[in-house]
C-alpha cells in the first residue's frame, strides 16, 4: 500500500469520475444520454463551487499548522450572506459595496481569531469555536428585526446562470476556475504562500529563516475569514434567500473537502486544487444519495465513511509533531 503512490487530488478526481459513471446505471440515472450526463456533471460542479470557496479559507488555516482550523467559517458565511442581502436590497449598483462589506467583516472576524490564537495562545479549535458562537449570536440579533432585503438581479445572473445561451457553462464555475487560479498563485507563486507552508511545518525553522511567523499567522486567519465572507456572498447569490442556518451545514464538509483533497491536517503540505477535487467528490456523493432518495442519516454515514477511507488510503497522517 505504501508503494502505491498517487497524488491525493488525482485520487479524489478519479473517485469522483468513477462514482459519476456508476451513477449512470441508477434507475433514474443519465443512462446512455451523453447530453443529460454532461448537464448532470455540470450541475454537480456548479453546486460544488460554494463548498469549494468556503473550503478555501479552511485550506489556508489547515496548512498553517499547529492544529489550525476555522470553526467560525459557517457562521461567517451566514453573516456575510445576510449583510449582502440587506445591503443590496435588489439594487445592482450596491453589489460591489456588499462584496466589500462581506470581505471586510469576514476579514475582521478572522483577524480577531488570529489575535486570540497568536497572542493569547488559545488553540485554534477553541478560539474559532467560541467565535462561531459569538457570530451566531450576532446573526440572531440582526435577524430578530426580520431582515428585509433582496438579491440583485446581476448577482443571480453572474452566479446562477450560464455564461451565454450557447455555452452552457454556469458563471459560478468560471468564477471558481479564476478563483482557483488565484489561490494557486497565492499558495505556490507568492512569498506569503511559501511562508505559510513553512510555518505549517516548523515555526522555529521558519523564524530562524527570517519568516515573520506572527504576521503570517494573523494574515492567514484574516484571509480565511475574508474568504468565508466571499463564500457567503456567492451563496446568497445562488439561493436568493437567507436564513440563520444557511452557512453552518458547510462547516464540516469544508474541513472534509480539505482532508479528502490530500492536505495534511497537521499542516505544512497541501493544495487548493486538492480541496476543489474534495469539494466535487463530497458534493457528488451527497447529490447521488439524494437522487437515490436516501435519508439524511444514511447520507451522513456515507460521507463520514468516505472521509475515513480516503484519509486512510493516503496514509500520510502524522500522529505527532516532532
Amino acid at each position, binding site marked *: 500500500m505504501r508503494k502505491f503512490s498517487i497524488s491525493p487530488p488525482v485520487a479524489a478526481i478519479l473517485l469522483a469520475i468513477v462514482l459519476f459513471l456508476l451513477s449512470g446505471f441508477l434507475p433514474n440515472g443519465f443512462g446512455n444520454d451523453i447530453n443529460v450526463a454532461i448537464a448532470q456533471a455540470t450541475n454537480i460542479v456548479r453546486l460544488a463551487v460554494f463548498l469549494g470557496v468556503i473550503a478555501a479559507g479552511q485550506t489556508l488555516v489547515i496548512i498553517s499548522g499547529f492544529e489550525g482550523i476555522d470553526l467560525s467559517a459557517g457562521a461567517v458565511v451566514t453573516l456575510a450572506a445576510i449583510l449582502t442581502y440587506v445591503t443590496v436590497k435588489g439594487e445592482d449598483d450596491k453589489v460591489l459595496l456588499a462584496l466589500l462589506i462581506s470581505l471586510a467583516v469576514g476579514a475582521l472576524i478572522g483577524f480577531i481569531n488570529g489575535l486570540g490564537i497568536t497572542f493569547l495562545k488559545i488553540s485554534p479549535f477553541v478560539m474559532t469555536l467560541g467565535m462561531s458562537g459569538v457570530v451566531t449570536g450576532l446573526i440572531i440579533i440582526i435577524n430578530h428585526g426580520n431582515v428585509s432585503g433582496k438579491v440583485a438581479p446581476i448577482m443571480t445572473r453572474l452566479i446562477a446562470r450560464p455564461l451565454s445561451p450557447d455555452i452552457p457553462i454556469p458563471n459560478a464555475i468560471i468564477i471558481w476556475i479564476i478563483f482557483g487560479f488565484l489561490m494557486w498563485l497565492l499558495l505556490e507563486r507568492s512569498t506569503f504562500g*511559501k511562508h505559510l507552508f513553512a510555518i505549517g511545518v516548523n515555526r522555529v525553522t521558519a523564524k530562524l529563516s527570517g519568516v515573520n511567523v506572527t504576521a503570517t499567522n494573523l494574515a492567514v486567519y484574516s484571509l480565511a475569514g475574508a474568504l468565508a465572507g466571499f463564500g457567503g456572498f456567492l451563496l446568497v447569490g445562488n439561493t436568493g434567500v437567507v436564513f440563520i442556518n444557511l452557512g453552518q451545514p458547510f462547516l464540516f464538509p469544508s474541513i472534509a473537502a480539505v482532508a479528502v483533497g490530500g492536505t495534511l491536517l497537521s499542516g505544512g503540505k497541501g493544495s487548493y486544487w486538492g480541496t476543489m477535487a474534495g469539494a466535487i467528490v463530497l458534493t457528488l456523493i451527497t447529490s447521488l444519495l439524494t437522487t437515490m432518495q436516501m435519508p439524511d442519516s444514511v447520507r451522513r454515514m456515507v460521507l463520514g465513511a468516505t472521509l475515513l477511507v480516503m484519509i486512510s488510503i493516503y496514509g500520510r497522517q502524522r500522529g505527532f509533531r516532532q
Partner: protein
Amino acid sequence: MSVSLSARNIVKRYGGVVALSDGNLDVHSGEVVALIGANGSGKSTMSKVINGVVVLDGGQLLLDDKPVRFSSPQAARKMGIATVFQELSLVSKMTVADNIWLTREPLKSSGMIDRKLMWEKTEALLDLFSGTFKADLKPATLVSALHPDEKQIVEILKAISLNPRILILDEATASLDSRQVERLFELVKRWKAEGKAIVFVSHRMEEIFRIADRYSVLRNGKTVGQGDIKDITEKDLIQLMTEKEKVFQFTKAASGEDTSGLDHPIYLEVENLTTETLRGISLKVRQGELLGIGGLQGQGQRDLLLALFGDIPYEGKIRIKGEVVRFKHPRQAMRKKLALVPGDRAKEGLLYIRSILDNFLLPSWQNYGFPLKMKLAKRDALTISERLSLVMAGLMAPVSSLSGGNAQKVVIGKWLLRDPDCYLLDDPTKGVDVNTKAEFYGLLTELSQQGKSILFYSSDDDELIGLCDRVIVLHDGKIRAELQGASLTKENLIAASMGVSNGGEA
C-alpha cells in the same frame, strides 16, 4: 550489599560513526569512579551502555562477575542500576511525587494509588536536600513550576528512590548551585558508605578531585587511562584527555595570508552581552576572520549566536561595522547580511517534509518577485547544490530523503544563496560524515578568504585548532580564555573548557 560492574572493550557504533571502540570501566561497592573525557570522547555513550539505554555492538558487561546484557533501561534498573540523566526525563505536567514514583506508585489493597504514603515517601526524599531549595518544594508541586536546579534534584531523588546498587550521575551537578553540590557530595559519601557503587560523569575538574576515588579517561572512544585519583594531577589528567594523533589534515589559509587577516577592519563588535546564560561577553571579529568558539556544550555558545542573530533578547551592545544594532527578529539580522546555521538541523534548520528547493529558498523568496520567478529560483538552487556537491534525487525531493551530511548542506546552502557578510555557525559538523566534514572545512576557509566573518562554535576541539586562528573558550557564560598562535593547543583548550584556573593564556 556488595556489587561490582565492569565493562570490558565496549564497542558502540551509530551508523558509520564509531562512538566507542574500546571502552572500559570498573566500579565496585563503596567507591566513586569518575568517567572523564573531552567532547565527543564517548562518555555519554559509555554511561548509556551501562544503563541499558543503548545496546552495545561488542565487548562485555560483567555484573558481579557474571556476563549480562541489558535490552532496555528497565532491564538495567531491575539489576539495580539507576541513572540521573543530564537531559531531564521528567514529565512537566505532573507533580514531584507523581514523577518520582511514576510506574511504581505505592498501592492500597484496593488497587488504588496510596497518595498519602506516596507523599510521605516523597517528603522523606525531599528532606535529603532540605534547606537548599530557593522556595518551598512540596510533593504536590508541579514539575513545570520548578527551577532547573530543583528539577535536577527531583531527577536525583527519582534515581535514588529506586535504592540502586549502582548509581550513575551523568553531569548531575551542572545546574546545581554550590550549596546543593555540597549536599549532594555529603549524600554521595553516605551512599558510598552504604555500599553503593557510583559512576560520576562530570566536566568540572574541581569536583572530580573532591569526590572521586578512581578515574577512567576516555579519548576518541577508547579508554586511555584508569587509576586512583590520588595518584594523578589535574595536568596529567588533561594530558590524558588530549590526543596526540590528528585525524584530519586541516588546510588553513596559505601561511602568507595567515596574519594579514589581522589588519582587516573590525566587522562585529560585542560589548558586555548578557542573556539568561551569558554573563557579559565582549569580543571583536574582523572581516575575513574565522573565530572559533570552544568550551563544553551548553556554556552559552548557543545563546551567543542566537542573540547575535536577533532570536533571543539580550542586554549589552552589538556593533556591526561600527554601527550599533539591536535586532528583535532574525529577519532584521538577515537584512544586515548575517546568517545562522542553528545547532539542531532537524528542529531549527529544515522544513523536513518540504522540497530541497523550498528549503534552499526559504530565506530568499522575497527577492523573486510576484509571481515568483520559479525558473530563476530553480537555477539558483541548482547552482548552490552543485557548489556544495549535494547528493540528491532532484530539487523537488523532500529534505527528509537526504542523509545527515547532505541535509546539513541544505541548511548552509540556503544562506550561501543570500551571500551574507557574516556566518554564525552552531556546531555545523555534528553528526556529519567524514567526507562532508572535509568539504565543510574547505568551504569555511574559502568563505573567510572571500572576506566573510565567521563565528564557528564546534564541539570538536580538533576542528577549532585546525581551522581557526583564534578561539574563545566559554565556561559558565563567560569567556574563560582567548587562545591564538602558540597558546592555541589542545591542552589549553581542554583546560579552559574544564574551568581550570591556570588554563588558557600561556
